[in-house]
C-alpha cells in the first residue's frame, strides 16, 4: 500500500507522449545509423574492388596474322607497366572475357574471328601509391601506338564522395536527433515539475529532500527512455527490413548496393544496437531528468 509514489507521473495522460517522442527520435537516429552502416559497407566493397586499379587499352590487330603481333605488343606494354614505380600487377584480360562483354551487341556466335578486339590490361597499384597518369600514357603510347590509360578511380571517387556525404548527413541527423531527445526530456521534466508544483511544495514543506523528489522523475525518465528506445529500434528494424525486401525483390540495379545481404551481414550489429540503443536512451533520459530536477528545485525555497 505504500508503493504508490506521491507524484504518480506515469498516470499523467499528457506524459504518455514522451515515450512516443523518444521513440520517434530513436527511430530517426536508428534509420540514420543503419543508412550510414549500409552505405559504409557498400563503399568499402567498391573500394576493395576498384580503388587502386587502372585499365590500359591497346588497339586490337585485324586478321589471323596479327595475333602474334598483338601478343608482342601486349608483352611490351605489360613489362613497361611493371617497371613503373607504384604499379603492383599488370594482367591482360583474356580475350574470351572481352568477347562475352561484346555479345549483347553482336549476338552470340556472331563474333568474326578477325574482329579487331582491343586488348585490356588490368593494372593494380601498390597500396597508397599515386601514379602520374599523363606521364604513364605518354610512355605507353611511345612503345605501343594507340595505347590508352583509363582511371577507374575518377568515377569511384565521385561515388565515394557521395557516400561520405550521405554518411555525414546521417551523422548530423543522429546528433540533432540526440539533442532533440535531450530537449524533450528536459522539457517533459520541467512540465512535470510545473504540473506538480503544489505536490512538490507540499513534499518540501513536510521535509522531503530534493533527491527524494528527483527520484520519482528519474525513475519515470529511465522508463520512458527505455520504452521509447525499444519502440523506436523495433520500428526502425521493421522499416529497414521492409525496404530490404522491396529492394531485394527487384535486384536494385545500382552497382554493388545489395541491401538485404548487407543487412543480414550486420545482424549481430542489429542485435547489439537493439539492446544498446534503448539502454543509452534510458540512461540519457535519466541523467537529463536528474540534472533538470535538481537545478529547478534549487531555485525554490
Amino acid at each position, binding site marked *: 500500500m505504500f508503493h504508490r509514489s506521491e507524484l*504518480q507521473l506515469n498516470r499523467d495522460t499528457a506524459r504518455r507522449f514522451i515515450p512516443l517522442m523518444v521513440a520517434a527520435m530513436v527511430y530517426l537516429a536508428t534509420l540514420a545509423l543503419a543508412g550510414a552502416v549500409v552505405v559504409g559497407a557498400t563503399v568499402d566493397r567498391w573500394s576493395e574492388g576498384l580503388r587502386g586499379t587502372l585499365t590500359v587499352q591497346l588497339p586490337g590487330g585485324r586478321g589471323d596474322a596479327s595475333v602474334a603481333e598483338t601478343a608482342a605488343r601486349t608483352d611490351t606494354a605489360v613489362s613497361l607497366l611493371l617497371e613503373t614505380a607504384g604499379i603492383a600487377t599488370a594482367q591482360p584480360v583474356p580475350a574470351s572475357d572481352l568477347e562475352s562483354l561484346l555479345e549483347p551487341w553482336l549476338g552470340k556466335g556472331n563474333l568474326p574471328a578477325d574482329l579487331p578486339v582491343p586488348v585490356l590490361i588490368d593494372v593494380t597499384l601498390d597500396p597508397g601509391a599515386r601514379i602520374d597518369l599523363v606521364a604513364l600514357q605518354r610512355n605507353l603510347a611511345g612503345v605501343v601506338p594507340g595505347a590508352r590509360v583509363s582511371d577507374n578511380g575518377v568515377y569511384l571517387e565521385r561515388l565515394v564522395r557521395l557516400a561520405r556525404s550521405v554518411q555525414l548527413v546521417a551523422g548530423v541527423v543522429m546528433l540533432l536527433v540526440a539533442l532533440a531527445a535531450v530537449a524533450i526530456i528536459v522539457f517533459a521534466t520541467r512540465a512535470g515539475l510545473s504540473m506538480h508544483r503544489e505536490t512538490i511544495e507540499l513534499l518540501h514543506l513536510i521535509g522531503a529532500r530534493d533527491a527524494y523528489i528527483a527520484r520519482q522523475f528519474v525513475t519515470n525518465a529511465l522508463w520512458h527512455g527505455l520504452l521509447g528506445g525499444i519502440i523506436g529500434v523495433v520500428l526502425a528494424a521493421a522499416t529497414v527490413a521492409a525496404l530490404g525486401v522491396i529492394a531485394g525483390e527487384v535486384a536494385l540495379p545500382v552497382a554493388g548496393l545489395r541491401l538485404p545481404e548487407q543487412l543480414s551481414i550486420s545482424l549481430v550489429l542489429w542485435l547489439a544496437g537493439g539492446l544498446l540503443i534503448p539502454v543509452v536512451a534510458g540512461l540519457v533520459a535519466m541523467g537529463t531528468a536528474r540534472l533538470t530536477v535538481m537545478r529547478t528545485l534549487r531555485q525554490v525555497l
Partner: protein
Amino acid sequence: MRANLAVQHSGERNGVVRFENVGVRYGSGPEILRDISFELEGGSFHFLTGPSGAGKTSLLKLMYLAQRPTRGLVRLFGRDVTVLKRPELPPLRRRIGVVFQDFRLINHLTALENVALPLRIAGAKKEQIEAHVTELLSWVGLSGQVNAKPPTLSDGEKQRVAIARAVIGRPSLLLADEPTGNIDLDQGLRILRLFEELNKIGTTVVIATHDRSLVSTFRRPELRLQGGDLTLHRPAPTGVDRLRRVDPLPGA
C-alpha cells in the same frame, strides 16, 4: 550580533520561534506584516487571530519555512532561517507539523497514505507506520475512511486528514491554520483537545483561527494581527464557560 548569539546559545526551550522586526511585503504592494517581534517559548500554546486578510497565513508561512521575511530576523529552534543552507531545511521542517488552511492532501493517495507521508519521507518502516496512522485516523473520527481518497471525502473529513498528517510525527512545533473552519463544533473541540495533549508533552502550538468561541473556550494567550501589527492578549483571569451559552439550538 552578540544578542543573537546569546539567544542561540540559550537553546530551544526558551525561544522555539523568535521574530525580530520582521516585515513581509508581496511584490511592490504594502507591507502585510510590519515590525513584528515576539518569541514563543517551547511548550507554549497560542491562538493567532485577526480579520480575513490580516496576514495570519503569511505569519505562519514564515514559521514553516515556506517564505522568507522581506526584512527582519526569524529564528526557529535557535537557528537564523535566513542563512540556512538548502540541505539544512528538511531536518528542520520535519520537526514542524502544519495544518494548511487549504488542506493540501494528495488526491491519488488514500487518507492512510496521506497521513503516513511525513513518516515515510523521514524514512520510517511500513510496519511501524500503519498501526499508528490507523489509530490516529480513528481518533479524528475517520476510522471508516482509512482507504478513501480525498476527492471522495467531505471537506470536514479532508481537514481532519490534514490535521492527522500534521500531528503524526509528534512535531516540536505545531502550526494550524484555521483547523476547524470546516468542522462542526463537537469535532472542533475534540481536535483542540488533541492539540492540548500534544502541547502537554512539549509541543509548541500556534493556531490561527477566526472562531472567537474557540478562543474564549480554551482561554489561551492570543496573538492578534490587525493592520500589520501584532499584539499579545492574555485571557481574562476568570472565564465563564462561554461555549455553553452558544451550544443549545434555538429551534430544537
